[in-house]
């Protein structure tokens, strides 16, 4: 069941009311990451930032610009002033763009694109290197190295132009994403993770590159309760990716069995992510995603 909405402009993806709230947020990585360029993000590295961190004795070869001459005048010894270095962060937001995402009410692919736009916007306004990617047919099409608020319109246009179809080829797509020279940073992978070929290999590949990976699973209300929004209980279920069909009567026993299997599947996903050092979260596509971005993701430590 597809309820794909028409996303045509930036405001469709990122509502003005949300922009003000996002302007105050920044990404928070759980890993110490080395950026390519000096950015606005305060890193743990001592460097050339504005915030004082410590002193240390001068060693030969040190940059004389950082010598504290006041201390030298009082103590007649050379000390270097050390600052917290400010560096940029690589943010990759990857969306599963397989046909399976084009289902649900609200549409999972729409919700994924809105969340991706919001996270990307947070990255852009904080001068991080933002890369948007869609995982589709084993490839990872991307819009790379965006920086600055003015690139938000480009990001929105690119996301609006994306369509969900075919299979994701999750494993291959993740490998393709990992092999791209995107530097180190955060990777947020948004999808439903209902993958016949599995997801572990793809996530491992991303995590092994030193990226701080966050797996965000979006399920539609119908996937959580198959009888929701459905009067007819005798249905022919059609898999949008491989077109396989299942005829079934959605009585309470069958639904209960399905929900048990879904719970097991999600538990396996959580355990796999925990094992790989990947943060994971599952949301309903009907979630209030503004509240989700501003409150839930801050509690989860993805934003600050």
């Amino acid at each position, binding site marked *: 069941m597809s309820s794909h909405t028409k996303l045509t402009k930036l405001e469709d993806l990122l509502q003005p009311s949300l922009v003000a709230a996002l302007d105050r947020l920044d990404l928070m990585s759980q890993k110490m990451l080395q950026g390519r360029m000096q950015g606005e993000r305060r890193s743990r590295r001592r460097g050339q930032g504005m915030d004082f961190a410590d002193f240390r004795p001068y060693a030969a070869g040190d940059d004389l610009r950082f010598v504290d001459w006041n201390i030298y005048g009082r103590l007649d010894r050379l000390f270097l002033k050390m600052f917290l270095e400010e560096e940029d962060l690589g943010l990759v937001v990857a969306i599963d763009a397989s046909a399976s995402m084009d289902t649900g009410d609200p549409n999972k692919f729409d919700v994924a694109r809105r969340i991706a736009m919001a996270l990307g916007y947070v990255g852009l306004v904080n001068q991080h290197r933002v890369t948007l990617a869609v995982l589709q047919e084993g490839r990872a099409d991307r819009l790379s190295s965006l920086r600055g608020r003015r690139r938000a319109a480009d990001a929105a246009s690119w996301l609006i132009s994306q369509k969900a179809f075919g299979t994701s080829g999750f494993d291959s797509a993740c490998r393709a994403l990992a092999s791209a020279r995107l530097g180190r940073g955060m990777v947020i992978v948004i999808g439903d993770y209902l993958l016949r070929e599995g997801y572990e290999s793809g996530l491992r590949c991303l995590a092994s590159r030193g990226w701080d990976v966050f797996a965000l699973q979006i399920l539609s209300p119908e996937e959580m309760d198959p009888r929701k929004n459905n009067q007819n209980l005798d249905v022919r279920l059609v898999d949008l990716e491989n077109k396989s069909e299942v*005829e079934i009567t959605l009585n309470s026993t069958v639904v209960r069995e*399905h929900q048990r299997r879904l719970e097991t*599947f999600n538990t396996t996903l959580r355990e796999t992510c925990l094992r790989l050092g990947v943060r994971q979260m599952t949301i309903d596509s009907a979630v209030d995603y503004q509240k989700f971005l501003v409150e839930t993701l801050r509690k989860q430590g993805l934003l600050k």
Partner: protein
Amino acid sequence: MTLLTPFFGVITALIVVPLLLLLYMLKLRRERRDISSTLLWISRTQDLRANSLLQRLRLSPLFLLQFLLLLMLAAALMGPILKEWSRPSGRVVFFIDQSASMQTRDAPDARTRLEEAKRLAIAQVELWQGGGLFAASPPEVMVIAFAQEPSVRIPYSTNLARIREAINAIEATDQLTLLAPAMSLARAFSVAQSSPQEAEASPQMNQANNFAPTMQLLSDGNISDIAELVLRNGEVISWTRCGDPNTSNQGISAAGAERRNDDPSLVGAFMTLRNDAQTAAKREVQVRNNGTLIASASEPITIPPATGKGDTRVSGAQKLSFAPFTLVNSGVLSMNLLPEDAFATDDHAVIAIQEQQTLRILLAGNDPALESLLNSLSFATVQQISSNDFIKRISSDATWTESFDVVVCVDCELQSLTAGRWLIFGKPPAISNLNAYGQQTRQAIRAWKSDHKTMAQSQFSDLVVDRSAAIAPTSDWLALLEGSKGPLIVSGRDNNATVIYVAFLPLDSNWPFQRSFVNFTAQAVEFLGALGSAVTSESLEPGAMLRTRIARGSSNVSIQTPSGDRIAQTPTDGEIVFGPMRNVGVYKVESVDPLGKKKTRMVAVNLTNLAECNVAAANQLNIPAGDLQSTVIGLTALSIWPLLVSAALCLLIVEWFLYHRYGGSS
């Protein structure tokens, strides 16, 4: 087990069972629903896939349950009943006994026998009518209620509602049980029957007899005329006994009251109690006058048990008499046996006591003995006239005699009899009923009718008649005294005249010197004076006709029955005839005489018939000629369809449980 409507069930099964099979074999048309992945559904639904219009039938528990359920419903529609029973074809006549004994309350659930009979009859008809659209044609049913007088409550009909209504409308009576008139009535409504000889002579007619109705008798078996009953060729009657053969009864078998001759304001009452049980019974007795208790036994009266068995059985009896009490006006004396037993009808008796009354007597002719005797009667006033004057007077005024209660004629040459009550001595009146043909001499007495009111307490064996008229009355006249050469006292009617004729003059015999002369004359005057009602009213039996005299010119004549219904009457020749009376109690004859005075006469009706009061249901009916099937007529046939429907509902619940417990694919 019998199936009432097998074809209906078979047709239904032939339709619904293949339909169920087809539904299971057809691929279910399902709504397409696109989902992200069938990953979580595959193992669950693999066995439901079908790739063709018709799929292979999979025997699931649900299918078997549904199959069984449909079979049960189809079986229920066949109308199965448990019993060796078959629906009669053609016509059925229900004879429902509504006699007095059917009011005995010994049927289950404290019902009377009549109520039980009606319930059984309705249940039987409903059973025959059951079966729905495809049921075989139910028989045509006629209902005849019978006691002394049969009545067709509904002619042959298949309309269940009307039959039920007709049966429910049958009311209880207190009459005797006569079945033969009811059967005659049924035959009149049926195909003409033939005697065995006629049937032998005419095979076609014999074949017609095969269509004789099935007769269904619902009765307690106490049928007075069972010995006279003859079933015709082809007639079969089935009897369903209503009532308990062990029910015993105590009741009032006789009751009476009389004003004393020496003091008519005093009334003496007596009663006889009867006990049909094998053991003595104790009952309380009360006597009430117009509802006021006037006498009561100080302790329960013991009624001795019945003796003997079978036909020689004699009921126990206890006679009671009560001290005379004063009653100047008319009244209703009720005698009650308490507490009431299963048959309450004979636990009560009523006696209508008329107002103290003086008879006006006209004595025509000269007879010193009669004159002396009539003048000595305390309840009569006598007017005397010579025979010649009398003849002249009635020639000019034919209604004159009617203004007297009794006209006593001595040796008058009457050419005809005008309306009135006549006691005639000597010369016979010139009426054809008597057929006077001369004279007889020297007669002794051969027999007399001692049970007639006029002949009671009299002995005629010493009477010798020297000279008398020779008469040969017609058969509708009653001979009260038979002489050695012909009747000497006769009683009968001629047009509007009620007559007791004595074919000799008292002085032509030794009668004036005998006590019977006084007794007869007094009793005859009393009897004629008010047709027996001058002093007390006689008690009639249910089923009898009420015949009473009404003064000419009376208006607003009506009869009030014991139930309170008032029925207008039109007197004919100064007399009304009403009946037969259905129930015990007091019937009031009311009228307004020509002077505008309201007149009321009460007639008591009591059930004292021993056969009807013996309420023990018969063990068997012995019809002298004919085929009697003394069986319970299949009225207890057990319908099984409710059980089958209940079982089908249980199956439905099990199926529902399985469906939700294991899902549609199980």
